[in-house]
């Protein structure tokens, strides 16, 4: 007998298992927690910006038409000559005078790069979370992870207030790889002192389009 059959049999013996009514029972689970936000869009955006500030992530605001110059200003301030970008990132966001390379499959090239510029799939205000969807042409997992610097563009229409709203949107691409980012990586493993930036990008900056 296979392990699978053994395990299934043991489960059935233990619970008197029945799969027939599972759907009905599932629907009867009490979900009295908040499933939707209450803030208006302006407050929602401010909440998101607040949370990012809590994480120590600088937030730059600009109009959609100003994205390229804003990127230019940030790169200049950071003394960077350019960034890696996902294949399908809109070209009009990329300013002249800097290098923007499409991501390379070579991890070491990613490791020695100056950083990455991406957009996102959605954002959750209450937790200051940015959600990346790793579809072909969009930012890959490696690209959003290995470089030490991540600049992310977020549009106000992408921001939801609550986690349930965020998950609901994520369900529509549930089988793509997904990464949620809530502040830079951190550990509290050394005497409970919170140290930022262990393996993921140590600097995360956000351009919040107004």
């Amino acid at each position, binding site marked *: 007998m*296979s*392990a*699978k059959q*053994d*395990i*299934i049999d*043991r*489960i059935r013996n*233990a*619970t008197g*298992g*029945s*799969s027939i009514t*599972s759907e009905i029972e599932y629907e009867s*689970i*009490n*979900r*009295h*927690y*908040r*499933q939707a936000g209450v803030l208006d869009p302006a407050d929602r955006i401010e909440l998101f910006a607040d949370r990012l500030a809590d994480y120590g992530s600088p937030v730059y605001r600009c109009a959609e038409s100003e994205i390229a110059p804003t990127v230019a200003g940030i790169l200049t301030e950071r003394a960077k000559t350019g960034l890696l970008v996902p294949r399908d990132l809109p070209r009009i966001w990329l300013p002249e005078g800097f290098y923007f390379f499409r991501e390379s499959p070579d*991890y070491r090239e990613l*490791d020695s790069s100056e950083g990455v510029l991406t957009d996102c799939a959605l954002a*959750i205000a209450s*937790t200051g*979370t940015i959600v990346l969807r*790793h579809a*072909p042409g969009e930012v*890959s*997992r*490696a690209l959003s*992870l*290995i470089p030490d610097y991540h600049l992310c563009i977020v549009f106000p229409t992408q921001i939801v207030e609550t*986690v*349930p709203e965020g*998950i*609901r949107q*994520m*369900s529509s691409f*549930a*089988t*793509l*790889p*997904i*990464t*949620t*980012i*809530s502040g830079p*990586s*951190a*550990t*509290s*493993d*050394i*005497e*409970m*002192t919170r140290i930022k930036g*262990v*393996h*993921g990008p140590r600097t995360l900056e956000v351009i919040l389009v107004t």
Partner: protein
Amino acid sequence: MSIRVGEAATAPDFPVAAKKLVSNAQIRQNVRRATDVIRNKRARVVEEVEDWEQLRQAGHEIKEHVLRHLDFYLQQFEAACTRAGGVVHWASDADEANRIIVDLVRAQEATEVIKVKTMTSDEIRLNPALQAAGITPYETDLADLIVQLGEDQPSHIVVPALHRNRMEIRRIFSEKMNLPELGYRPEDLTDAARAYLREKFLRVPVAISGGNFAIAETGSVCVVESEGNARMCLSLPRVLITLVGIEKIIPRFRDLEVFLQLLPRSATGERMNPYNSIWTGVSPGSGPREFHVVLLDNGRTNVLADDLSRETLDCIRCGACLNACPVYRQTGGHAYGSVYAGPIGAILTPQLQAMQHSHSLPYASSLCGACYEVCPVKINIPEILVHLRGRVVEENHAPLLEKLAMKAAGYVLETPERLSLAQKAIRIAQVPFTHDGVIRRLPGMLAGWTSVRDLAPVPKQSFREWWAKRQKEPRL
């Protein structure tokens, strides 16, 4: 079957292990500081959540529902994961899981693997099995790295190295990473870990992870982390092997909306932990080319079989109960002799082993209830502790002297006449032990009391005697 829960089957009894740890001032300081910090952080972020109780209730109900239909959901997960290009393996016990994983690594002709924190792998003792097969596992969570390089055991679910202070960590890193000039600040230590591990992340072709949640509906797995090492292990290597206990299943993707609120706030006192990774099977063109899931029983069906304590399997491994527990606070995790420590460890460890071992663990509690208050999925741990104590007694693992004493006490307490007689007898028996109105030393089973506390002698007149006398006297 060889069910294994780390080294729990041969660990010393809790009171014995606790005695040593209680005398260790540094461990007590470290544990106290760590638990205080997380307790306070947790309290702050839970207080701001208006619907916290509703979330707890939903989390509880979802988990209870899954357990009732676990056969269905496991098979649904297998089908969905397989459709997405994953390979699902089933392991009845620790040995089988180790065999499957070793074979998968060998099939890659790999001699190294990078690992993401998973207590489940400590439970089955995967690392020794890999090493015996000539495969070197590298732990990549900072705390597990500290524990591994320090050749030690984890002492907390979420902060496994909390028993180590920074001086000890510096010494371990300096020696094992060959960094004689290593600085002393926490930043220096994490920088050293970053460099040491990055080299491995970019090179090692096989990774082994656990999973916080396995979603039946989509066949997806979700890993919750803070450092970024899981993201590295889950997306860079060629082959990914994910080991999950069968109780990690949740029904549908939407159920993450409950657990991704409960877990970070309970575990690390954050609104959301830095990184969550969710993936399904394999994705062409990115990430691992091969993905294997090992579904592990290893005694979980034993826990399932007792419907009075089945809810032990609701646990989402947040560690909040450890931080709240006044007993854990005095001893740290090593006293429990198991990878699962604290209140959850006290109920899970013996049950996984079908109550064959770890009989002292259900008694490692004063039943204060602090754990139940903080459990995000409302596991009634105190009630389960009492139930398991009943099983220890019923299944004949209670000390003989204790059984006799309890039987005698039960006999005495059944009737008022016997109770009165016993009260009179105690008043006589205590005379040789009473000096200047206080008892400072008692024999036998009661010596434990007087070794650290005084005892006031039994008064000359019991309440019932006073009442009887009063009834006879005429009153105004």
